[in-house]
């Protein structure tokens, strides 16, 4: 009897500890967001969004940074989206379960685990040095595309995997070819999931600073980039730059820029979650 009571007590104790642990992360998150909002929100106004960088914290804005982020977002999507989906489709629908497919799978898992800064080194050597492109938007986008490609591939595969076998069987049984089945059934049915994955990947790209620093994108860029061959800066780099300044006014700027960056990240994630939920509601297999 005592044993059984002791067991129940331990059980309760762990429950309390579990609640504590679950909330500690969220509490930290909350403190953190509140802190940043208090610090930065008053700094955000139209001028802040439309001003170029300045040596005076009060006059400095994030126009270059957010336009750069937007450019990077679009360019990376254009590069990683088709490539990632095509690779995902190949691996899920076409590749035979051979050694080669195993190798591809391990390889992609590995790429997904390569630290982002290594992609920076790759971009530096390949695009900046070898191809002589310089630290321009296109190079940043290429570097980040390579970085998020594995994520896009993996999520594409999961989305495709979620399409039930029976749908493919149904299509094949009516005489459809492999590509017809993929095109008419698999892709439409998994599109929501794929899009979700791509957006999540992009939200990762939007937050990256390290690889861009390595390719040399840390500079005073007081103009809005007009083409992929322009030099650029992005929000995380602007934040990094301001964070490393000791003056309080720049830290306020950094906090304000962080709010914008978080809004973009959360927005992207929100869209992804929304799409995922809608997808789950819409199609019940």
């Amino acid at each position, binding site marked *: 009897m005592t044993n059984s009571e002791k067991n129940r007590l331990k059980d309760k104790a762990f429950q309390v500890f579990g609640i504590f642990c679950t909330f500690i992360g969220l509490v930290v998150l909350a403190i953190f967001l509140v802190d940043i909002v208090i610090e930065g929100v008053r700094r955000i106004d139209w001028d802040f969004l439309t001003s170029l960088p300045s040596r005076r914290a009060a006059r400095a804005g994030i126009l270059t940074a957010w336009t750069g982020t937007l450019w990077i977002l679009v360019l990376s999507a254009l590069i990683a989206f088709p490539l990632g989906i095509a690779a995902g489709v190949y691996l899920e629908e076409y590749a035979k379960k051979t050694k080669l497919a195993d190798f591809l799978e391990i390889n992609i898992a590995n790429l997904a685990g390569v630290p982002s800064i290594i992609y920076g080194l790759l971009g530096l050597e390949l695009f900046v040095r070898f191809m002589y492109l310089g630290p321009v938007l296109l190079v940043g986008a290429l570097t980040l595309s390579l970085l998020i490609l594995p994520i896009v591939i993996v999520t594409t595969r999961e989305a495709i995997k979620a399409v039930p076998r029976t749908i493919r069987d149904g299509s094949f049984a*009516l005489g459809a070819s492999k590509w017809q089945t993929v095109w008419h059934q698999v892709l439409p049915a998994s599109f929501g999931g794929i899009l979700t994955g791509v957006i999540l990947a992009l939200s990762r790209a939007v937050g990256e600073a390290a690889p861009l620093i390595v390719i040399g994108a840390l500079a005073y860029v007081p103009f809005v980039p007009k083409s992929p061959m322009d030099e650029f800066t992005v929000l995380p780099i602007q934040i990094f730059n301001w964070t490393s300044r000791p003056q309080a006014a720049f830290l306020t700027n950094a906090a304000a820029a962080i709010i914008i960056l978080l809004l973009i990240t959360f927005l992207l994630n929100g869209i992804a979650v929304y799409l995922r939920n809608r997808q789950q509601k819409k199609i019940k297999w």
Partner: protein
Amino acid sequence: MTKRQHKLEAINLDAYYGDFHALKNINIAMEEKAVTAFIGPSGCGKSTFLRTLNRMNDYIDGFRVQGQILLDNRDIYASNVRVDELRKEVGMVFQKPNPFPKTIFENVVYGLKIQGIKDKKLLRETCEKSLRQTALWDEVKDKLDKSALALSGGQQQRLCIARALAISPSVILMDEPTSALDPISTAKIEDLIHELKQYYTIIIVTHNMQQAGRVSDHTAFFYMGELVEYSKTKTMFTSPKNERTQNYITGRFG
């Protein structure tokens, strides 16, 4: 073409999933415009055999067959056979209704569309004809452009049959077509099978022996990859020759 000839025939058929020997030396000949039922305990190879009949297992890695399957006396595994053509000849219906997540109309005409047929009128006519054949027309004619997923399970299954009929096959394979359905839908599908066997050769896998008794002309009993017994359904259920058949039919296992 006279009735009661052999539409489909397996000769010394072996099938493997990788190293696993799933079908062992199957010899069987199925009659035209009749219903043949496959029965047997779970995992005995019924579905595997059924799916070799329209080469549905082609895309499974490591799957291979030895021996022959003759459709109208032509080996369907011969190298000059185009799988898509074969599948137009041999339609298939699955255990779980699997309508595409598209409209009812799109479901029925899918097979035609991927053949490149674009003629609106023809598509509409075929759609109506197939839905009438499956006694679904009256139930869905007002919502052809609604999602097929909104139909009930029984309706979905009949839609899948209609979809198969739309490309005018001569053989229809059915893998436990009623096992996910309620009694009333089951009865409807069974009636439908009765209707359809005038025009089509039907092969049905079922785990419900009473169903096999009700709908089929011939029954094949599989056990562990072997075809244990194949005979007229009546004979099989009244006087099985093999002890394992007997045990299975009387519910000693399964």
